[in-house]
């Protein structure tokens, strides 16, 4: 791979890493609120440190510079010189946000929001200035370098007192007295290498002094008893020479004498010719500095960090060997398995035409095949499953920020974070959940004073729970706030013409009115919610996923929103129905019941619509043959079956000729090769290899409204 391509790849890894690190920082910072323990602070520090280092290495200087301030703050907290305060945490959280945006911008090769970053950097600088850290080194400043050179900066370079050595031949140069400590060699600091490096700076004359070397019997091979006098010719910067000995500064005694060359007599009196044992100033510094952090125990971090660690790549990641796989590959695999299921089902049907003996063998083989295929399918579907914690993760932060903003006290409880669901469903349920939680916080929960006055604890509770129930995943958003105000909702609904003035509605029906478009009982529109565009979008999004959402509430006590979603988008539990010679599929989730309709219950309504009296309610009737333009067995309602379905909170009766089998079908889209069709949600391939269309039940509502009521919705 060319250098550029390789660097692009490495940058990609850096970006991913950084986002993961930022997530770790965020969830750890939220935990810090409650208990400021060392391990958590260290973790946050490390994450910031990594980002800073990586950014600098790859040339993303703005990111690196900004992170430096953050890192400094964290370092002070880490070594105890700065207290962990809610304000500091808030600033750090905001910095994480800022960093995230910055990294996104860098990744997309877009300009960063310099103003925002500057503001944050300013605040950090101010905070740092207010409590100067008592660390051994001043924070965020260039290297003090007390240890680097034998002579501290202000000290003048010792001019050689004696006559310049012959080797220098009258030109400028240095005489270096180099005496390693006994243990210098132990760290593989080989003098010969250092001399080789000096030679690169100028001509070198090495004079060894072995006088201190003990007798062979006492000699330890790795103890250095040698010392050298080095004569280096050339106009060389002292700094360059010091660099050569940089690593061994603390393990040796070294002195430098400079000769300016050409007859310049040394002016200053000789500084002690004897080697100055330079115990680096760093040694005491090292003693007082923070001792190396003890090996960090493998603390299992909060869900957020775990989620961040879990998908870590193949290069020796932390957990039980996981790999990243592109979703394209997984989808392809799922297609293949779908094929296998169809083939297996086709074969099963062929078994009907064989001789008894062959038949037995064939049947056995097929049973085995069926079992294998089913297992394979389940395993493959599993690959796309992810725990809902990925969606729940953003809520601690969200609730934290929002409750501060609204001045409410809230405790967030999460349960069932490990419940798994399909990746695409997960991604699409995230925003609706955010809206529901914001709503609960904004409108559901009362302010602390109001709660106390109502005899409730000051701190309200919001619960997010997820669990599996009968092939679906249920997500609940519960709050112990004020609940829905029946009267208010009814009034608002009447005002908007959604409900007739004299209509009688059950509590449930009233509660579910909040999902209607444009509906909001909020007196003021906060920027959080209240604009009334939320709940209906939430419901539509959930329906698009093949799910349903309901709300139940008790005035004064709180509300519970219950979302039911299929575990996966790709597979549907379907009811096959027949209209004439055509087979269609209706999602089982949408079906309430199927009945044999009686003619006398059918009523025509001006405008062309038909209503059927089902017990105590009237439901519109959709004749599927009309919708799809096909020939049915019979047009008489009493000859067919009425499939009662529910969509968008209202019920419909769909007239078909017959019910066929129920089966799981793999959902395929018409849009790849054709296009979207009104009333059709997709297509599937049946066991006999033919294509059947999947009825779009929520879409039926639309089509029905348009064709019969001129776009106006029917009152319930």
């Amino acid at each position, binding site marked *: 791979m060319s250098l550029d391509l*390789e660097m692009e*790849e*490495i*940058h990609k*890894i*850096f970006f991913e*890493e950084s986002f993961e690190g930022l997530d770790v920082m965020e969830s750890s910072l939220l935990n810090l609120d409650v208990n400021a323990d060392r391990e958590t602070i260290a*973790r946050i*520090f*490390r994450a910031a*440190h*990594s980002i800073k*280092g*990586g950014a*600098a*290495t*790859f040339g993303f200087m703005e990111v*690196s510079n900004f992170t430096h301030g953050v890192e400094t703050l964290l370092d002070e907290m880490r070594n105890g010189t700065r207290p962990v305060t809610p304000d500091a945490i808030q600033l750090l959280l905001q910095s994480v946000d800022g960093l995230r945006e910055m990294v996104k911008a860098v990744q997309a090769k877009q300009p960063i929001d310099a103003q925002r970053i500057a503001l944050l950097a300013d605040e950090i600088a101010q905070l740092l200035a207010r409590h100067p850290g008592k660390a*051994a*080194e001043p924070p*965020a*400043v*260039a*290297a*003090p*370098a*007390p*240890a680097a050179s034998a002579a501290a900066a202000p000290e003048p370079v010792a001019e050689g007192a004696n006559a310049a050595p012959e080797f220098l031949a009258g030109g400028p140069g240095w005489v270096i007295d180099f005496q390693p400590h006994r243990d210098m*060699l*132990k*760290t*593989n*600091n080989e003098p010969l*290498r250092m001399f080789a*490096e000096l030679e690169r700076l100028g001509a070198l004359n090495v004079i060894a002094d072995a006088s201190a070397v003990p007798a062979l019997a006492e000699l330890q091979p*790795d103890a250095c008893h040698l010392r050298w006098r080095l004569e280096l010719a050339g106009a060389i910067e002292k700094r360059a020479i010091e660099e050569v000995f*940089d*690593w061994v500064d*603390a*393990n040796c005694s070294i002195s430098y004498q400079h000769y300016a060359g050409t007859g310049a007599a040394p002016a200053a009196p000789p500084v002690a010719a004897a080697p100055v044992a330079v115990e*680096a100033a*760093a*040694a005491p*510094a*090292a003693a007082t*500095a*923070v001792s*190396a*952090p003890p*090996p*960090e125990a*493998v603390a299992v971090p909060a869900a957020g960090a775990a989620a961040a660690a879990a998908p*870590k*790549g193949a*290069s*020796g*990641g*932390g957990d039980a060997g996981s790999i990243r796989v592109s979703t394209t590959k997984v989808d392809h695999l799922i297609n293949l398995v779908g094929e296998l299921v169809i083939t297996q089902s086709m074969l099963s049907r062929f078994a009907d035409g064989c001789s008894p003996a062959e038949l037995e063998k064939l049947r056995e083989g097929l049973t085995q095949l069926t079992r294998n295929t089913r297992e394979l399918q389940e395993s493959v579907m599993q690959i796309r499953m992810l725990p809902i914690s990925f969606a729940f993760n953003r809520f601690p932060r969200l609730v934290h920020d929002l409750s501060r903003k609204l001045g409410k006290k809230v405790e967030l409880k999460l349960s069932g974070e490990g419940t798994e669901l399909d990746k695409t469903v997960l991604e699409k349920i995230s925003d609706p959940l955010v809206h529901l939680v914001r709503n609960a916080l904004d409108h559901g929960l009362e302010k602390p004073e109001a709660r106390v006055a109502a005899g409730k604890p000051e701190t309200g509770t919001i619960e997010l729970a997820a669990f599996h129930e009968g092939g679906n995943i249920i997500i609940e958003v519960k709050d112990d706030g004020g609940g829905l105000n029946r009267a208010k909702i009814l009034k608002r609904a009447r005002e908007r013409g959604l409900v007739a003035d004299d209509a009688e509605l059950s509590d449930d029906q009233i509660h579910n009115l909040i999902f209607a478009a444009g509906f909001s009982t909020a007196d003021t529109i906060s920027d959080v919610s209240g604009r009334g565009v939320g709940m209906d979008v939430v419901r539509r999004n959930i329906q698009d996923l093949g799910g349903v959402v309901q709300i139940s509430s008790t005035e004064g006590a709180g509300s519970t929103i219950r979302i039911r979603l299929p575990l996966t988008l790709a597979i549907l539990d379907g009811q096959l129905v027949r209209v004439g010679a055509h087979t269609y599929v209706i999602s089982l989730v949408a079906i309430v019941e199927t009945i044999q309709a009686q003619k006398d219950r059918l009523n025509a309504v001006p405008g062309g619509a038909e209503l059927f009296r089902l017990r105590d309610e009237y439901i519109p009737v959709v004749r599927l043959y009309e919708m799809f333009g096909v020939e049915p067995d019979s047009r008489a309602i009493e000859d067919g079956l009425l499939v009662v379905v529910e969509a968008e909170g209202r019920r419909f009766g769909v007239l078909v000729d017959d019910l066929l089998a129920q089966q799981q079908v793999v959902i395929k889209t018409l849009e790849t090769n054709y296009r979207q069709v009104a009333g059709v949600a997709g297509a599937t391939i049946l066991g006999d290899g033919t294509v059947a269309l999947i009825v779009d039940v929520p879409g039926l509502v639309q089509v029905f409204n348009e064709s019969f009521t001129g776009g106006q919705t029917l009152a319930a």
Partner: protein
Amino acid sequence: MAGVILAVDDSASMRQMVNFTLKGAGYDVVQAVDGVEALEYARKNSVDLVLTDVNMPRMDGITLVKELRALPAYRYTPMLVLTTESSQDKKMQGKQAGATGWIVKPFNPDQLLATIARVL
């Protein structure tokens, strides 16, 4: 000037960069995500140079150097720690733990190769 280099850093992007740079120069590279992994590997195999970051979970770079020096096979193996400009005490801690020297972050590929050439 080949040899086996053990590169230890919890940041995958850093490891990649080091890997790419060193491999390009003809070295063999083994990667480890933290001190524990590095130590384990070093015990069972032999490497010619250890290059380690300091801040890592489970076991940091300084401790790693100390542990390695305690192993007979690694008494004299060159070891370099990656530190930042301002971290004087980390450099000293590294030396005290037995490191041969350090490389200052951020570094570019040339600096990395030059420094390694000093010890390998």
